[in-house]
């Protein structure tokens, strides 16, 4: 995939050694769990392995998963990019509020979202009962492909939104002004200037969406859509660890295929303006379109947030058996959630920095491989990755097994590409002339990085950290396997309620999850002022 010659400076032959070592170490660390996968998959006999891989149903679920990935990815780009543009470049009212609202679907655990959509829009769901007086007997089928695609899109488009937003924030609008003075229409200017600039970021977000759609467990199961992961799930619940691992390796293979494809199409030409960090002035006036834009933002965030919260509240209102202290909410759960999520965001950002830097600035076969390696953990279903770390933890890291340290390590392995993708896109837009100028003015290379590059990539850094933070807030399977005994977070609390059938009791922690995440987003967004002047 990386046969083309490096495009920037004197890359390839002169990789900065410390950064390369750091980057290689990170890549090796996130690939470690594969060792367990391979080991366990080998327990399946060869003949059985071939039989499993070639049975007709396996082929069918592959096709199903592929269709889901394509539809969800395209839809997420079509939703995420316009929303990012609206909240960054236009005079949309309540921009900050909408930025938070349209990011928040990311914190809704997909199994909660899917479950709520089934309850709301199922053939005889809440919505149908609402419409019953009007003579509506049955709603169109939500189960199957349409439901799965809808729900996965609604809860993953924020990946595209957040990465694109970061790119738009650091976009030098003088380029657009230049295009406009050259008599380009606004659309032409967008197509010829903005799109090439944000393409790597959109690609990074779309890749996250695609791989998420591929590896999601919960939604296909609830939507009764026969995706690849449903097969893995069935094996797992019937103690077929080995077959589940084998199937997960196939998932990894598909992931590599997607990564290869993405390498071909993604924009690798670095794009930068002469004077970067210029201005983001020149807000685009929406005029009458303002109302349409507001309605679109409201509709999308409303659908994604109000449906699950509303359904949970209905369950809560219906009451049910009183269940005593086990489901009483404690503030410590929120503190735990925020603590481990912030830890994961921080570690992922630090670990991802050298990988993203090399992949953007010193492109070579090796640096590409390092970057692509970070995606592997992300594409493995959480429960499989969790078990791999259970194995590594008990075998080689007993002192930190079932402590928050290993838990945070698991989050980093799972979500590192979210940070790397976002940061890499930012690095690509940094004009190398700027840090070079700093070097000629006597800065060390690290000094130049700190004084010049870092402020320029800050939006990407924060965007990536925000992604890791929000997804860690809702991570369940690895949390259940690796948390210290008795350690509870918001999402384990939601799980405790739903797993025992007390759906109503999931409403309060779910609301708190969304509320706490919104507050955290507010903090992250307030840091954005730090980027470009």
């Amino acid at each position: 995939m990386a046969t083309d010659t490096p495009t920037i400076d004197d890359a390839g032959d002169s990789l900065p050694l410390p950064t390369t070592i750091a980057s290689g170490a990170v890549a090796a660390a996130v690939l470690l769990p594969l060792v367990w996968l391979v080991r366990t998959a080998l327990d399946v006999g060869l003949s059985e392995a071939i039989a499993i891989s070639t049975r007709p149903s396996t082929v069918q679920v592959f096709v199903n998963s592929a269709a889901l990935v394509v539809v969800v990815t395209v839809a997420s780009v079509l939703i995420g990019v316009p929303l990012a543009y609206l909240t960054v470049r236009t005079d949309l009212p309540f921009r900050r509020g909408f930025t938070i609202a349209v990011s928040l679907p990311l914190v809704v655990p997909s199994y909660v979202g899917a479950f709520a959509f089934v309850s709301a829009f199922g053939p005889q769901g809440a919505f149908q009962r609402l419409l019953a007086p009007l003579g509506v007997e049955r709603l169109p089928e939500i189960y199957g492909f349409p439901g799965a695609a809808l729900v996965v899109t609604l809860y993953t488009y924020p990946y595209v939104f957040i990465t694109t937003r970061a790119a738009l924030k650091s976009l030098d609008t003088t380029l657009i002004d230049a295009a406009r003075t050259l008599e380009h229409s606004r659309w032409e200017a967008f197509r010829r200037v903005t799109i090439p600039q944000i393409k790597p970021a959109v690609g990074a977000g779309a890749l996250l969406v695609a791989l998420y759609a591929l590896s999601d467990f919960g939604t296909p199961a609830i939507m009764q859509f026969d995706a690849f992961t449903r097969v893995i799930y069935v094996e797992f619940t019937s103690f077929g660890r080995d077959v589940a691992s084998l199937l997960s390796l196939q998932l990894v293979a598909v992931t590599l295929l997607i990564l290869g494809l993405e390498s071909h199409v993604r924009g690798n030409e670095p794009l930068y303006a002469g004077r970067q960090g210029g201005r983001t002035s020149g807000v685009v006036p929406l005029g009458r379109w303002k109302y349409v834009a507001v309605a679109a933002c409201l509709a999308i965030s409303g659908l994604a947030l109000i449906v699950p919260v509303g359904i949970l509240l209905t369950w809560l209102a219906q009451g049910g058996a009183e269940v005593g202290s086990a489901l009483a909410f404690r503030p410590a759960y929120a503190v735990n959630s925020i603590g481990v999520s912030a830890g994961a965001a921080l570690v992922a950002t630090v670990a991802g920095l050298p990988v993203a830097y090399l992949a953007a600035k010193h492109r070579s076969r090796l640096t590409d491989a390092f970057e692509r390696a970070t995606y592997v953990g992300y594409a493995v279903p959480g429960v499989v990755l969790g078990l791999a770390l259970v194995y590594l933890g008990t075998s080689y890291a007993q002192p930190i097994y079932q402590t928050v340290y290993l838990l945070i390590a698991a989050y980093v392995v799972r979500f590192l590409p979210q940070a790397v993708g976002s940061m890499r896109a930012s690095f690509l837009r940094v004009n190398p002339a700027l840090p070079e100028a700093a070097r000629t003015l006597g800065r060390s290379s690290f000094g130049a990085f700190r004084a010049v590059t870092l402020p320029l990539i800050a939006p990407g850094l924060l965007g990536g950290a925000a992604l890791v933070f929000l997804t860690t807030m809702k991570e369940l399977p690895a949390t259940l396997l690796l948390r210290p005994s008795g350690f509870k977070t918001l999402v384990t609390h939601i799980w405790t309620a739903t797993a025992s059938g007390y759906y109503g009791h999931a409403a309060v922690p779910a609301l708190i999850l969304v509320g706490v995440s919104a507050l955290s987003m507010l903090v992250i967004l307030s840091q954005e002022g730090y980027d470009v002047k």
Partner: protein
Amino acid sequence: MKDHRSSRRRILQIGGAAGLASIAGCNGLLGDSSGGSGGNGGGGGGENVVGQIGSGRSPFGERDISGGVSMTEMPDLSGELTLYSGRGEPLVGQLITFIEDLYPDLTIRPRYNSASELVNQIETEGDGSPADVFFSVNAGSLGALKDRGRTVELPTEVLDMVPDQFHDPDGMWIGTSGRARTIPYNTNELSDADVPDDIFAFPETEAFRDAIGCAPTYSSFQAFVTAMRALNGDAETRQWLNGMLDLGLQHSYADEFLVSQAVADGELRAGFANHYYIQRVLAGRPEAPIATAFTEGDAGAIFNVAGACVLDTAEDDTLASNFVRHLLSAEAQDYFARETFEYPLVPGVEPIGRLPTIDELNPPENLDLTQLSDLEGTVDLLRDVGML
């Protein structure tokens, strides 16, 4: 140590002294009196009487502890115990906390997750597993750990507390409470007589067309199919499954609580579910039009158990097996009946709600619970007919 013991005895005996008949409705050790219906009822006075775990409330009326061996007569527990619980915290958390609070020198570190994931976890942890005791929702996952050589034999005194059919023949695990397979039906749509006594008559029952549901990924449903394979063979089971699919079996539900809710809502006329889900729906909605039917002597009427085993990685086998013993105490058995609506397995403790007693059930003969751990063949079959 001795002081602790005697003071504990005294606390527990206050309950005895006040007369077991007076316990119902009073507050437990946890002191959570909210929702305790008629906390002072039964003539026990206002004092905090210990013995009944939890708030003493029950949607099906109050009752006494009767029969079984009290925790007071069991060996003391001390030390640290790591409990992997496949049973949910809302269901058993109070019981675990009660036992922990009873002994000042006992620390229990519970770890809650689904039973199948905990089996996977224990297997993956290997020799490095911190787990001492595994508390599970079904015999299948206990059998899976036994088959992998991860269990140690329980002492005879513990095994003898339940009838032989409720523990592993080799003594590797023991049932702590029971669950019957049942047919929940909507009383507005059907009557008890509409539900056949024979599971094999179901595919021909037109009243069920497009309106009977199940949860094929749920372990208890898989145990039911496994039982049918064991009793009637794979061919007949496949035929039955295909017949049900032709009848329009709705096989989309994620668990059997949802199946029971759907029956109560009228979305389904009938379903396949463990008995306590129906009781749980009724506990929340006493007027819900849902009732319980049973088949007789076939796979549809199997009686499975939730249970526990001591793991080979247990640091202190004695502590671990004595903890399991506490799950069979009169107090714990009473708790299972009242709080989780299950069947107590220790003779003399009765179930609760609108349920027949354990002796009135008609589970199939010639089937023991160890036969239910072969899930793989069942999963293959369910996948083959298109239900998974």
